[in-house]
């Protein structure tokens, strides 16, 4: 499998990541993430419990969407290149939502012999509302001499 590699010489501030879309979130997505992660807060899988807490229905764990977003990031910057990843959970993700994960480079720099890029990353729903906002720092390689 051929992997696309980001090189310092080829990137610039403003460059955007190829988006990753997760269409039509279902309760099955949520239950799968609960089992995989160990987050069994019933507010995410027990409809009656969620309603008793004043919610219209169950909603996804923020960390599930942070996982979708990390998929976009690692496809973009490469495996093992992430140095910092920070997310803020802005809105709930509900069954039926479609989530699009995006990123944009804000800065690139070389420091102590290491190249880095900073990017803003976010996930938005089908109404264009941001459900997660965040930022990353990733290591970037120099382009090999031709």
């Amino acid at each position, binding site marked *: 499998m051929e992997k696309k590699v980001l090189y310092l010489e080829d990137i610039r501030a403003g460059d955007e990541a190829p988006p990753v879309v997760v269409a039509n979130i279902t309760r099955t*997505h949520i239950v799968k*993430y609960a089992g*995989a*992660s160990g987050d069994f*807060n019933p*507010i995410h899988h027990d409809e009656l419990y969620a309603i008793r*807490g004043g919610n219209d229905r169950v909603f996804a764990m923020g960390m599930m969407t942070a996982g979708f977003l*990390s998929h976009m990031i690692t496809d973009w910057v490469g495996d093992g290149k992430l140095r910092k*990843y920070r997310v803020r*959970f802005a809105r709930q993700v509900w069954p039926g939502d479609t989530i699009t994960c995006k990123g944009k480079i804000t800065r690139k720099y070389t420091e102590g012999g290491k190249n880095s890029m900073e990017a803003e990353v976010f996930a938005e729903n089908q109404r264009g509302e941001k459900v997660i906002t965040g930022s990353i720092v990733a290591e970037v390689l120099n382009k090999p001499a031709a």
Partner: protein
Amino acid sequence: MPIQDLIGKEFPPFDLPVERGKIREFANAIGDDNPIYSDPAYAAGTEFKSILAPPTFVATKAFWRKGESVFELAGFDPHFRLHGEEEYEYYKPTLAGDVLTCESKITEAYEKPGRRGGKMTFIVLEFSFYNQKGEKVLVSRTTTIQTEGAVKQ
């Protein structure tokens, strides 16, 4: 007890074994079909020589931690508990077969009025993960917010 008194509270350290099957299950749950998470032959040909864990995999620490949780300690009601922020710093890759030792402590605890009325309580829990070679692998920080009612949007 004033919430600020929780600052500095440490939790018992525990081990988080990084299992190949769990990595595959976790990658599947976040919809990531990258073969580095599931195909040993592919992974063997990479610089890591092994199946790699996705960036948020240490969320699975939930299966391994022991004793009273920070939420029990702070009296947080799971009905009204929100995950505010999550932050990671990565130092070394997390590989299948690693056993990470996790140390955790409360680094911040404070209250402030919510925008829609009611009190909001914030707790920041910092986790440090070390591998079986004693190397610091990553640090994560979780900000959890307790509200006095469900958040309406």
